[in-house]
């Protein structure tokens, strides 16, 4: 049933041995394929063993699923757009997708826009406290941790610490806050992210509440997820027990701590944009916008930008062809077209060659609009898109201003 919780472990010894937290996700993927519930699974793996180069892989052979075991913190592939662009929106294939909260939220927004078929997806969500930008992460490991980045075999972000494990088994730990003050640490959007447990997916898996045991805490988040887990237990791919109230409580507490930390980052980042005078804001943004080289990267990456014929293309009469920087209408339209649905995935900032603080602006606007329209994007496929929908109820509100 939706809401059920389990402490789970893989029943497969080989997987268990290779795993960090009980090998549950790997076993679930194997089950999904072997039971023919799905045609393929979509997960992340290190390209040629390079953990700084994580890529999405579509797997159909249950035996190779194990290659995707373990978390890659220095990779943030664009899962939602990947499904839309390269897997035909899952319209002709059933896929189990391993996803972080922001991936799942991007998928949900694309489902609302009829670009992805949710009926064919099973979303296996992973708790996430952040990812690291890969090139700066390497520099950080080198300069701050004084290790060779290629010796790192594991990263862990827990309780305000970044811990890395090296090939020879040694561990090194640093305070995340200190690293982030120095400009290292997580991607900016991840610092601000206050949705760390993917309850919008079908199941949410993580280590919070496992109390150091080699196990994964699973929360069932939908009826589809419930059926999936029950069948996986029946088929003996995973072994489960019920978490006690202490485990549930400690998971809840860890989540709340992360949310608090993220909100602090939001406040800090947004304050820097809000406390400027109108004049200062204008000069600041005009300056930022004028650095844009119109590469269309942000538009191509954003899961909310789904249009087949984008209005910002040169032949649409809005943005003059061959003009760099483009007129301010370009970043303005890009921002307002996505601001009501931004899922804070940070993809726009990752790809921007000019480092425009796009996600910061757009997430700030999204949270302001969220307060007005009482909406949080990417949480529910049935929630209407605030600036693309109206309700009958609004007919009875006479004023030009409206409270939702």
């Amino acid at each position, binding site marked *: 049933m939706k809401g059920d919780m389990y402490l789970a472990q893989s029943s497969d010894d080989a997987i268990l041995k290779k795993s960090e937290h009980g090998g549950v996700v790997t076993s679930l993927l194997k089950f999904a394929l072997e039971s023919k519930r799905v045609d393929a699974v979509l997960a992340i793996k290190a390209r040629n063993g390079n953990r700084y180069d994580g890529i999405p892989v579509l797997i159909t052979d249950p035996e190779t699923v194990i290659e995707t075991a373990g978390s890659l913190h220095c990779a943030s592939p664009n899962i939602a757009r990947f499904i839309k662009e390269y897997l035909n929106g899952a319209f002709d294939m059933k896929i189990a997708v391993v996803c972080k909260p922001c991936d799942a939220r991007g998928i949900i927004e694309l489902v609302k826009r009829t670009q992805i078929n949710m009926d064919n997806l099973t979303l296996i969500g992973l708790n996430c406290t952040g990812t690291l930008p890969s090139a700066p992460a390497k520099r950080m490991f080198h300069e701050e941790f004084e290790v060779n980045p290629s010796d790192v075999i594991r990263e862990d972000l827990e309780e305000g610490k970044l811990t890395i494990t090296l090939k020879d088994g040694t561990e090194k730990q640093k305070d995340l806050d200190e690293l982030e003050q120095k400009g290292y640490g997580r991607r900016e959007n991840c610092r601000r992210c206050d949705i760390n447990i993917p309850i919008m997916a079908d199941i949410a898996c993580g280590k919070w509440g496992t109390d150091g045991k080699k196990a994964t805490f699973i929360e069932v988040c939908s009826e589809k997820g419930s059926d999936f887990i029950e069948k996986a237990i029946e088929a003996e791919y995973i072994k489960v027990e019920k978490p006690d109230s202490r485990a549930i409580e400690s998971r809840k507490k860890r989540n709340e701590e992360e949310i608090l930390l993220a909100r602090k980052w939001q406040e800090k980042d947004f304050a820097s*944009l*809000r406390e*400027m005078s*109108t*004049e*200062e*804001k*204008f*000069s*600041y*943004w*005009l300056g930022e916008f*004028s650095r844009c080289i119109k590469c269309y990267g942000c538009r191509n990456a954003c899961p909310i930008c789904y249009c087949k014929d984008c*209005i910002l293309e040169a032949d649409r009469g*809005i943005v003059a062809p061959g003009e760099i920087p483009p*007129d*301010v*209408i370009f970043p*303005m*339209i890009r*921002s*307002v*077209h996505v*601001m*009501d649905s931004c899922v804070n995935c940070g993809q726009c900032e990752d790809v921007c060659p000019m480092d425009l603080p796009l996600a910061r*602006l757009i997430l*700030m*606007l999204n949270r*302001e*609009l969220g307060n*007005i*329209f009482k909406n949080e994007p990417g949480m529910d496929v049935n929630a209407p898109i*605030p*600036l693309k*929908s*109206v309700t009958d109820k*609004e*007919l*009875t*509100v*006479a004023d*030009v*201003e*409206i409270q939702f």
Partner: protein
Amino acid sequence: MDKFEPKIVAFFCNWCSYAAADLAGTSRIQYPPNVRTIRVMCSGRVSELLILKAFALGADGVLVGGCHPGDCHYMKGNLSARRRVTGLKPFLNAIGISSDRLRLQWIGASEGLKMAETISDFTDTIRNLGPNPLKRRQK
């Protein structure tokens, strides 16, 4: 410096506000000559793009006039306009173009006086705000 005369782009719905502006004219109700009117079939036609383009082209203010809720010829076009204007205001504030430069008003076909008052009041507001800063950027 010359006295600042605001340029206001007004998107008026064919069925109500446009008629109201007409009525104000034929009833010889005075209102400031600062608006450039664009007739649209419904306030629901006024997308974010039209509003932002007006600003980008130098409008000091943008006025959107639609039918009162319940009166829209296309049922809910004006409700879309209301959501869009509501959503655009935080954006305009964030990038330093005061949201007071954008106004939505319901003006029914018979409300010639309300039309004149709206235009006078909005013109004053814009006069106080000064020119649209976007006009300063080099072309």
